[in-house]
C-alpha cells in the first residue's frame, strides 16, 4: 500500500504518461501545419481544385489534433509546479525563461493565426489567408525550439551558476542556454522526425484510398508528397540524430553506455553496435547477439578507434564525483527504446524509397499487401518518435537535471501520494476516453476522403472557399 502511494513514483508515472500523450499530437501539429501550408501554396499558385481539396483534407485532420495538443500542453506547464515544486524552485530562474519566451514568441502567435486560418477562409484576402497557415506552422516550429532548449538544460546544464545562499541555479547567459549543443542537434532532429510523422499520416491516408482505387486525383499527389518528405526528413533525422549522439556522448556518456548496455569500456573493433540481443533483461549477461564491429565507436566519436566508456566505469566515476548512489538508468528501457527508434525510423525511409520506386512515373501497384504496409506508416512512425523520447528522458535518470538535481529530490514535498494517485487516475481516464474519440474521428475523416470545394465562379474562374464553422 505504501509503495502504491509513493508520491515520487506516481508523479514520475504521471509525468511520463501525460508527456507521451501530449507528444502524440505535437509532431503532427508541426508536420501537418506545414503540409497544409505547402498544398495551400500550390493551390494559391495554380488555382487547381485538387490542391485546395488536399489542403482542406489534411487541414481538418490537423484541426482535430490541434485542440488536443493545446489542452494537453497546459497540463505540461502546470505540472512542473504541481508535482515538481522543488525542481521549479531550483531551476525556475533558468528553466522558466525559455518557457516564458516560448509563450510570448510562439504560443500567442500560433494560437492567434490558427484561429484566423480556420475561420478566415472567406474573410481574408487569399494571400493573407495563406500567410496565416504559414504563420501557424512557423509558430509551432519556434515553440519547439524553446521547449527543446529548456529540455536540453535538463540533459546538459549550461549558462548557469549555483547561488548557494538561495539554493538554486541562476541564469548567467541566456545565449548559452539557447545555444546548448544538445538543443542545436535535438531541434533539427525532432523537427525532421515530426515531418516523418506527418509524412507517415499522409502516406497512410493516401494509401487507404489508393488501395480502394478512389480519389486518385488528390491522393496520388498526396502520396508522392508523403513519400518524398519521408525520405528527405528521414535522411535529415538520421544525420542530426548522429550529431545528437555525439553531443550525448560528450555530455551524458552514461546515456550512450545505457543505450548500448556496454558495461565495460570498449575501444575500436570491440566497440561494436549490437543490432539485436538476447540476454537477461538488464543486458548484463548476453546469450546471443548480432553485432556490427566498430559501429559504436564511429557513432560515439566519428572515428574507428575511439573508446566508449562503460557503465561500470562511469558508475565509479560518478560515485567519486557526486557521492554514493546508483547512477545507472534502467538498462533494458534505454537499450530497447534506442533500437526501436533507429529500427523503425530506418524502416520508414526504406519503405518510402521502395514506395517511390513502385509508384515511379505514375505506376500504381496492384498488390494489396503493398498498400497494407503503407497504411501502417503513420502509427509506426509515431511509435518511433515516442520511443525516441522515452530513450532521451529515461536515459537522463536518475537525474532530473543532469549532475545537478536528482529526480527524487525534485518532487513536491507537500503533495501526498493519494493526491497524485487521484490526478494520475483522472488523467488516465480522461486521456483514454479522448483517445478513443480522437482516433475514431481521425479515421472517419480519412475515410470520408477529401471534401468537395465547390465549382469555380463562372465569372472569375476561381473557387471561392467556404468557411469553417463550429
Amino acid at each position: 500500500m505504501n509503495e502504491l502511494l509513493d508520491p515520487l513514483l506516481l508523479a514520475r508515472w504521471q509525468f511520463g504518461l501525460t508527456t507521451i500523450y501530449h507528444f502524440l499530437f505535437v509532431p503532427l501539429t508541426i508536420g501537418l501545419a506545414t503540409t497544409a501550408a505547402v498544398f495551400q501554396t500550390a493551390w494559391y499558385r495554380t488555382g487547381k481544385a485538387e490542391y485546395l481539396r488536399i489542403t482542406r483534407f489534411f487541414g481538418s485532420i490537423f484541426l482535430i489534433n490541434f485542440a488536443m495538443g493545446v489542452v494537453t500542453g497546459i497540463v505540461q506547464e502546470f505540472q512542473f509546479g504541481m508535482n515538481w515544486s522543488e525542481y521549479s524552485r531550483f531551476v525556475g530562474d533558468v528553466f522558466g525563461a525559455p518557457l516564458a519566451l516560448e509563450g510570448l514568441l510562439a504560443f500567442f502567435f500560433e494560437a492567434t493565426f490558427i484561429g484566423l486560418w480556420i475561420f478566415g477562409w472567406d474573410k481574408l484576402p487569399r494571400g493573407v489567408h495563406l500567410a496565416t497557415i504559414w504563420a501557424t506552422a512557423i509558430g509551432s516550429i519556434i515553440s519547439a525550439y524553446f521547449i527543446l532548449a529548456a529540455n536540453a538544460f535538463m540533459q546538459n546544464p549550461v549558462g548557469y551558476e549555483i547561488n548557494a545562499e538561495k539554493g538554486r541555479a541562476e541564469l548567467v547567459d541566456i545565449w548559452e542556454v539557447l545555444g546548448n549543443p544538445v538543443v542545436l542537434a535535438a531541434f533539427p532532429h525532432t523537427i525532421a522526425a515530426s515531418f516523418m510523422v506527418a509524412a507517415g499520416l499522409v502516406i497512410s491516408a493516401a494509401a487507404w484510398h489508393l488501395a480502394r482505387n478512389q480519389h486518385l486525383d488528390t491522393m496520388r499527389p498526396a502520396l508522392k508528397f508523403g513519400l518524398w518528405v519521408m525520405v528527405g526528413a528521414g535522411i535529415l533525422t538520421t544525420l542530426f540524430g548522429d550529431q545528437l549522439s555525439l553531443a550525448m556522448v560528450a555530455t551524458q556518456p552514461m546515456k550512450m553506455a545505457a543505450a548500448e548496455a556496454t558495461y565495460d569500456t570498449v575501444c575500436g573493433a570491440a566497440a561494436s553496435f549490437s543490432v539485436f540481443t538476447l540476454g537477461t533483461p538488464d543486458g548484463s549477461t548476453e546469450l546471443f547477439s548480432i553485432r556490427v564491429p566498430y559501429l559504436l565507436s564511429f557513432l560515439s566519436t566519428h572515428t574507428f578507434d575511439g573508446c566508449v566508456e562503460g557503465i561500470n566505469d562511469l558508475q565509479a566515476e560518478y560515485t567519486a564525483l557526486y557521492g554514493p548512489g546508483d547512477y545507472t538508468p534502467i538498462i533494458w528501457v534505454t537499450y530497447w527504446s534506442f533500437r526501436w527508434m533507429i529500427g523503425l525510423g530506418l524502416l520508414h525511409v526504406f519503405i518510402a524509397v521502395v514506395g517511390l520506386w513502385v509508384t515511379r512515373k505514375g505506376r500504381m501497384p496492384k498488390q494489396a499487401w503493398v498498400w497494407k504496409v503503407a497504411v501502417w506508416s503513420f502509427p509506426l512512425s509515431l511509435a518511433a518518435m515516442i520511443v525516441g523520447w522515452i530513450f532521451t528522458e529515461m536515459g537522463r535518470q536518475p537525474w532530473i537535471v543532469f549532475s545537478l538535481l536528482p529526480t527524487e529530490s525534485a518532487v513536491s514535498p507537500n503533495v501526498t501520494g493519494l493526491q497524485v494517485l487521484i490526478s494520475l487516475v483522472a488523467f488516465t481516464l480522461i486521456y483514454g476516453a479522448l483517445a478513443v474519440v480522437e482516433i475514431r474521428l481521425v479515421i472517419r475523416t480519412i475515410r470520408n476522403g477529401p471534401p468537395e470545394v465547390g465549382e469555380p465562379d463562372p465569372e472569375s474562374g476561381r473557387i471561392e472557399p467556404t468557411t469553417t464553422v463550429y
Partner: protein
Amino acid sequence: MDLSVLWFGIVAFLFVGYFVLDGFDFGVGMSLPFLGRDETDRRVLINTIGPVWDLNETWVIVAGASLFAAFPEWYATLFSGFYLPLLIILLALIVRGVSFEYRHQRPEAEWKRRFDGMIIVGSAVPALLWGVAFANIVQGIPLDADHNYTGTLFDLLNPYALLGGLTTLLLFFTHGVVFVSLKTDGDLRERARRLATRTGIATIVVAASFLLWTGVAHGTPWFWILAGLAAVTLIGGWLANTRGAEGVAFTMLAATVAAAVLALFAALFPDVMPASNDPANSLTIANASSSEYTLTVMSWVALVFLPLILLYQGWTYWVFRKRVTRASIEAAAH
C-alpha cells in the same frame, strides 16, 4: 525601477488579459442552456468565440510561464499548494477545449448534446475555481518555512474564497452574455440582453460584497481606487446594457474584470503569497523573484513582444468583428 516590481505588474497584466478574454468565453459556454433554444442558436453561441477562444486561453499559459520564470518560488508554492483545484481546472479546460473542436464533427443530436454538457461544465468550473484560487492568494494560506502549503483542500474552500468564486462565476457569466448580445442579432441578441440585465443585478451585489470584504481585510489606497473603478464600471455596464448600448456595456464589463483583478494584485502587494499562519513565512516580491539577469532578459522580450501580441490579437478581433447570425451558420459548410 526594480525589475521584480515590473514583473509583478506584468504578471498582473497577463492575468488581467486572461480573465478579461477567457472570462467571456466561460460566460458564453455557461450561457448555452439559457440562450441556446435550438441547434442553430447553440452553434451561433459557440461560433461567437470560435476563432478566439484558443488565443484567449493562451493568456493563462503565458501567465503561468511568466510566473515560473519571474517568480519561481511563487509558481512552485501556488501550483503545488493548490494541487487539486488546479487539477480540476485543468480537466475542465481539457474538456471544454476538445468539445469546441469535436462537437461539430458529427451530425447526431446525442453527440452534440454530450459535448454541449462538457462545454457548460468545462466553462463553469474554471470560472468558479479561478475566483476561489485568487481569493485564497489574497487572503493568505498556511505556509511552512520552506514556503510549502501545509493546509488541506478544505482549507481552500472557506467562505471568503467561495464568495470570490461566486463573484468570478457571475461576472464572467454576465460578461459572456453581454458579449453574445454584441456578437449576435435578432431574437438571440435581445434575449441575451435581457438575461444580462437580470444576472447583472446579482453580479453587482455579490461582487460588491466580495470587494468590500477584501477591502476591510486587506485594503490599501490603490485597492480602494481600483475596487471603486470596478464598481463604477460594473454599474455603468449594467445601465448601458439595459439601454441596449452593447459595445459600451461590453467595454465597461471588461474594465470591471480588469480593475477587479488589479485590485486583488494591489491588495496583495508587496506580498505575492502571504502566509496566514506566520508573516515570516510569506512569499514577497523580493524573496520569490528570479535573479536580476533573468528579469532583464525577460523584460526586453516582454517589452518588444507584448505590444506586437496586442496588435495581432487586436487585428484578429477586427477580422471577426461581424455579428454571427443564424443565416450565416445555416449557410456555412459543416
